């Protein structure tokens, strides 16, 4: 009997030790898991924040791309439409100038153009050429400019004159075409302003 009780107590002790060992292992496992979990939470939170912030950045980038390119596209179409309208106004105006009446004040304009040309070239020894339409008007005022001659050749232009020094070294383009061309950027601005652009 005595040996049985000793055996039982040994078995109990072993069982108790094993139980304690298992419980300790479970506890330490639980503690480890808890620790890992605790450690993982801030990391996960920061990763979560990073994913959200990266996503937001990416979304902002895509939004900028889409709005940027559509804004540019819309603006470009507007520019093309405006240019078309400005061109139409321009060509209508040029037609009107080309077909303008050459009587009345027009000879005064030609006089001014010749006077300006002689002043800029610094000589009165000049050869004037013009288009067929303005030839008679130029001829009629030529007597007022000593040294000025009218060329027999004509060329195509809206109106006005092309003046050359008689030695052929200097030319001054005082045609209406050249004057309009010089002022074209300003005229375009004025026309665009009528369409409500650039005011």
């Amino acid at each position, binding site marked *: 009997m005595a040996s049985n009780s000793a055996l039982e107590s040994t078995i109990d002790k072993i069982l108790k030790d094993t139980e304690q060992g298992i419980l300790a292992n479970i506890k330490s496992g639980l503690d480890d898991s808890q620790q890992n979990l605790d450690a993982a939470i801030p990391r996960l939170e920061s990763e979560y924040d990073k994913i959200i912030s990266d996503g937001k*950045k990416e979304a902002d*980038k895509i939004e*900028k*791309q*889409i*709005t*940027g*390119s559509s*804004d*540019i596209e819309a*603006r*470009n179409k507007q*520019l*093309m439409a*405006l*240019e078309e309208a400005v061109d139409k106004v321009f060509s209508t105006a040029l037609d009107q100038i080309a077909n303008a009446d050459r009587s009345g004040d027009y000879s005064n304009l030609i006089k001014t153009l010749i006077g*300006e040309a002689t002043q*800029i*070239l*610094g000589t009165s020894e000049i050869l004037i050429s013009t288009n067929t339409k303005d030839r008679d008007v130029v001829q009629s005022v030529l007597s007022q400019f000593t040294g000025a001659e009218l060329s027999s050749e004509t060329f195509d232009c809206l109106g006005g004159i092309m003046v050359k020094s008689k030695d*052929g*070294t*200097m*030319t*001054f*383009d*005082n045609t209406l075409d*050249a*004057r309009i061309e*010089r*002022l074209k*950027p*300003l005229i*375009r*601005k004025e026309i*665009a302003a009528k369409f409500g*652009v*650039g005011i």
Partner: protein
Amino acid sequence: MTVEGGVQYSKIAEIKGPLVVVDDVDNAAFDELVEIETTEGERRLGKVLEVGNGKAIVQVFEGTTGLSISGTSAKFVGKVMEMPVSKEVLGRVFDGLGRPKDGLPDPIADKFVDINGEPMNPEQREYPKDFIQTGVSVIDGLMTLVRGQKLPIFSGSGMSHNLLAAQIARQASVVGKQDDFAVVFAAIGVQYSEAEYFRRSLEESGALKRSVLFLNTADDPAIERIITPRVALTVAEYLAFDLGMHVLVVITDMTNYAEALREISAAREEVPGRKGYPGYLYTDLSTLYERAGKLNGRKGSVTQVPILSMPSDDITHPIPDLTGYITEGQIVVGRDLFRQGVYPPINILSSLSRLMKDGIGEGSTRDDHSEVSNQVYDAYSRSQEVRALAGIVGKAGLTEIDLKYLELGDTFENEFLTQATDENRTIEETLALMWKIVSKLPKNEITKIKDKHVEKYYQEK
């Protein structure tokens, strides 16, 4: 702009390189715009370089190839070269002379401005002190750009300066303010593929609508390169001082500009200075760089980031040398880092932003910025020394603290310096990365930062 045109002279005495000498000229003015007309009716632009003894020397921007003495005429327009400017130029692409290159019409001008600009009254200048965020950590953190500053990038041939230029142009912004921001980008003598990259890069990122591009490609006449930075700066000045915008001007590559200057100087048979560049190179460069700044009582600013490639990576070459005298610091792109595959390969130890101290700190970036930046500089410098030492004695011969500096150097290059070309980092992210680097060191090695900042931002392991 006047209705009066100029006189056309048909007596061409000589054509020499990019220059045309016109005879029997009266009343031509220095810098006056000239239209050269060929027998075929082709027109090229130029400007008067010299007048006297009845002669005028004209520099033809588009080159003199194909011009002959007989049949060529020169029309003196009676005004200096002007650039039409208006808000409409934003989102547009122009060539090196300011002519549209995007298939759209000429912009409707608000006004016409002399491309040589008006010199800024020194009395009116305001000291630059407001931060510009480029989104590139190494620049924002260690060599901060401020509004109105001129901060050049010194690079070498084949390196990634153009990628960096495009990234800065795409990402640059004024933080925390609703002020308008614009980028003027001038490419001088770049390859077609690079010009196309700049255009596409801004277009695809949506940044084109706040940008203006001036593209002079390598196959465009070299003489045109003299004009490109000037038209770009003229537009920048208009946007800044007439429209109140903060304008960042990125100019690449200034070396090509200086080469064009040398070409003209040689053609004029001027006495050459160092490496054949004209003696007035310094003065000429300053006429461009000094167009950056802020004016008292005006809202806008012009900030310049000129990029130049140093021939043979030689920082003592006349172009970087003279540039360095005028500008307020420099960002140096390093060949070693580039070879390691680091982007952006900026060598911080040779780089410096002289105005950084006024653009950072509380109210601009963060109160610890200056100190953490000094600490990073110091620590990276020490890590370089340790690397050199390790190359001799091996890692085994290093002390524990040396090993920490070695690790810090790697972290600096791999995590802070290295950045994707489309990665736009905020200043907060940049500062966090700088603290990550500093936190590689034990606290007793941190000597340049106040304790209160260390307590607040030091990242314990």
